[in-house]
């Protein structure tokens, strides 16, 4: 193992093509010792691809990597580890049914004795690292039993245990709660005195808080490089997308709506969770036509069960849900869709689309059996293709063709496919669950604008989110959920981050 310190790492002219896509286009990037370089760019800009090349997971079509001035070639991640480079991937790379120690051992080749896995040595190393960097983990816990935040910590510990002195973090905060994110950022800035870090994120305030220098990637090219402190988040967003980004805000100064005329009217709803616990405990909420109600809360307080019950994906214990006067509680998903419900689900890859189906098929999935997409049991392929081209244009879906498998698109574009499908059906009500999670600012802006446009067309929208900023920007009213109960509903214009934060923690001031 090369223990030579990494004084500089340079990528020169890195180019990588995928079928139909130039993912990295002659990229130059250099990182010095003990510094944090932020790498930002829209979804699909090529950040992950570039870092996978640096790790030896992908081979570049062109270009060189220089370490301390001399050229290196990484044929597999082992080569990168040997030079002290480690990466926390965008999606967790943890084997769920193994323990934390086993996951670390998988990469720690020194624990691989001829006929025995030296799990004791691995455990010791984990405890050393976790103590040194103040990252508490239990080596004997099974990964699937850990929360998302804990798993992120395990990823970090694992990478450090493998001897990383140059750390690549690919969107490490996108799955974390705001509190977990703050902790991670604090931790990383402490670690940056000993390590070099490449930090990828869409959240520009994180970039501002953590990084020394920033590189902006757009469609496979570096379009900007400079010191972070010289740029405002708005500057960065504009450079990233190529135009000024301004997140829209709702204008709910208008008259108070009379209560009880909900388009979506929920009464005393009780729903069981997966473990038979009472996940929703008597929720009552009304959403008027043309109103956005934000549901704020730390995730895991019943949001998922609520969204599923509203969309016929989960049984209802008691209570009622009226959509434009029709009872939909406990009915099947097809019936709920038929009544005019739209749904942007939490997990876009498994619930929102069929990944192996093409974009155009996914766009008509909810109405595939009827006019106008099929006739007499045959698909009308022409109409389906025309529809896809039209929606691709209107919703700015970036894909090589509408025949591409939807699962191969970037997160932002998958979300646009879902949004296009749901909105094109002209729903009466829409449930949007974490609609911008993991997306870049350009995509976020687009989705927010779309939600507000539907609001003015009279759609009743329930927006479930953890991002207070998003909720406060968009909501006419904000309901705070805690342990399956709505603690309080406040008008959006009266809400402050502080008061909402307290409510989300279960503190009701009276």
């Amino acid at each position, binding site marked *: 193992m090369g223990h030579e310190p990494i004084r500089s790492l340079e990528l020169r002219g890195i180019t990588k093509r995928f079928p139909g896509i130039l993912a990295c286009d002659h990229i130059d990037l250099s990182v010095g010792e003990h510094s944090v370089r932020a790498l930002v760019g829209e979804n699909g800009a090529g950040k992950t691809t570039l870092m996978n090349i640096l790790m030896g997971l992908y081979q570049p079509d062109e270009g060189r990597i220089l370490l301390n001035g001399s050229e290196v070639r990484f044929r597999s991640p082992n080569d990168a580890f040997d030079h002290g480079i480690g990466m926390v991937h965008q999606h967790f*790379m943890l084997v769920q049914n193994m323990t934390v120690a086993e996951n670390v051992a998988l990469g720690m080749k020194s624990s691989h004795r001829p006929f025995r896995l030296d799990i004791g040595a691995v455990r010791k190393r984990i405890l050393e690292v976790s103590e040194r960097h103040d990252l508490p983990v239990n080596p004997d816990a099974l990964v699937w039993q850990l929360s998302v935040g804990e798993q992120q910590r395990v990823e970090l510990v694992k990478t450090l245990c493998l001897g990383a002195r140059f750390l690549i973090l690919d969107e490490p905060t996108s799955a974390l709660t705001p509190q977990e994110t703050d902790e991670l950022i604090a931790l990383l800035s402490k670690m940056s005195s000993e390590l070099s870090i490449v930090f990828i994120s869409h959240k520009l305030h994180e970039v501002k808080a953590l990084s020394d220098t920033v590189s902006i990637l757009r469609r496979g090219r570096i379009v900007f490089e400079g010191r972070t402190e010289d740029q405002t988040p708005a500057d960065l967003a504009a450079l990233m997308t190529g135009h000024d980004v301004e997140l829209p805000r709702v204008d709910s100064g208008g008259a108070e709506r009379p209560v009880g005329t909900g388009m979506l009217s929920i009464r005393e709803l009780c729903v069981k969770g997966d473990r038979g616990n009472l996940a929703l405990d008597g929720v009552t909420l009304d959403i008027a036509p043309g109103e956005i109600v934000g549901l704020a809360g730390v995730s895991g307080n019943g949001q998922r069960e609520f969204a599923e019950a509203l969309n016929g994906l989960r049984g209802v214990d008691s209570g009622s849900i009226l959509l434009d006067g029709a009872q939909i509680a406990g009915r099947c998903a097809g019936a709920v869709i038929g009544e005019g419900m739209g749904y942007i689900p939490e997990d876009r890859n498994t619930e929102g689309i069929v990944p192996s189906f093409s974009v155009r098929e996914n766009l008509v999935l909810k109405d595939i059996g009827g006019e106008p997409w099929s006739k007499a049991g045959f698909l009308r392929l022409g109409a389906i293709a025309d529809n896809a081209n039209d929606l691709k244009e209107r919703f700015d879906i970036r894909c090589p063709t509408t025949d591409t498998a939807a699962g*191969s698109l970037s997160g932002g574009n998958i979300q646009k496919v879902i949004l296009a499908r749901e909105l094109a059906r002209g729903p009466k009500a829409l449930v949007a669950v974490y609609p911008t999670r993991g997306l870049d600012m350009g995509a976020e802006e687009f989705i927010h604008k779309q939600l507000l446009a539907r609001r003015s067309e009279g759609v009743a929208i329930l927006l479930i989110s953890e991002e207070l900023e998003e909720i406060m920007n968009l909501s006419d009213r904000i309901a705070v959920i805690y342990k399956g109960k709505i603690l309080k509903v406040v008008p959006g214009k009266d809400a402050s981050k502080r008061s909402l934060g307290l409510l989300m923690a279960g503190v009701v001031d009276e």
Partner: protein
Amino acid sequence: MNAGSFVLNILILGVPFSVALLLAALGETINQRAGIFNLGCEGIMAMGAFVAFLPPFFMAGTPQAPFANLIGLVLAIVVGALLGILFALVVVTFRAPQGIAGIGLQMLGWGVAGTLFRHYVGGVTGVAGIAAFPIPGLSRIPVLGQILFNHNPLVYLAFLLVPVFWYVLFKTPWGLKVRAVGTYPRAADSLGIPVARVRYQALALGGAMAGLAGAYLSLAQAKMFADDLIAGRGFIAVALVYFGRWNPVGVMVGALLFSLAQALQLSIQVAGIDFPYEFAVMLPYVLVIVVLALVRKARMVGPTELGKPFDREQRV
């Protein structure tokens, strides 16, 4: 015949019956832990049974005859491993659908073994086969000795391999890699584990075990070869792996349960108990189906990527 000796008889019969299933299922456990189910197990067993049968058949009466069984076993293991590697070429390198490829391998092994047998051997002929080897001392223990320690050496070997496989799977670096590539190959890949190579190794081992299982049938159990010698045991072995939740110990329990049911079935017939013969024969198979239907979904235990090819640059 009294009830006591009826039960004893079932146990004495059941233990050696389970060996072919156990050997094949242990190998299949490794395959599936690495993410690949090999439905071709049946075909590999047929080939193993056939090649193992050849040396004792042709060497009978020669001075080398005492080594014939050993040569047969080694041949079966080598041929089995080679077929496992062939299967790996098809499903790992060329990423063919595993179910279809497995059925193909099953038919290939069965067909080739049968054809060569008719061509070179002809009619059904017995061989001396592997003799029983009662373990000195232990085999004299009343009842238990008869059930456990009065068999041919392959029986002992098979049961000794249960803890060995358990150890390999859960306590060695290679076992760790096998489990990782079957559950989350992308994670293994990100840590520099060569996914394809580990899967090749697992399939070679699984094939060797299936070959050995076939050899057990022709050399130790039936002491002959015939076209339908395997009689679906390869498929039962695949089912036993699910039943045993990908754990060698569970697989052993399943193999014993199934073969005890089979021994019961035989005993019922032999004892002339008034019970429809067809139902008796069905018994073990029905048992497997019922148990499989009752086994709870083992989401957090088994290889979750079972049956899926891995391609680093494939995103869907």
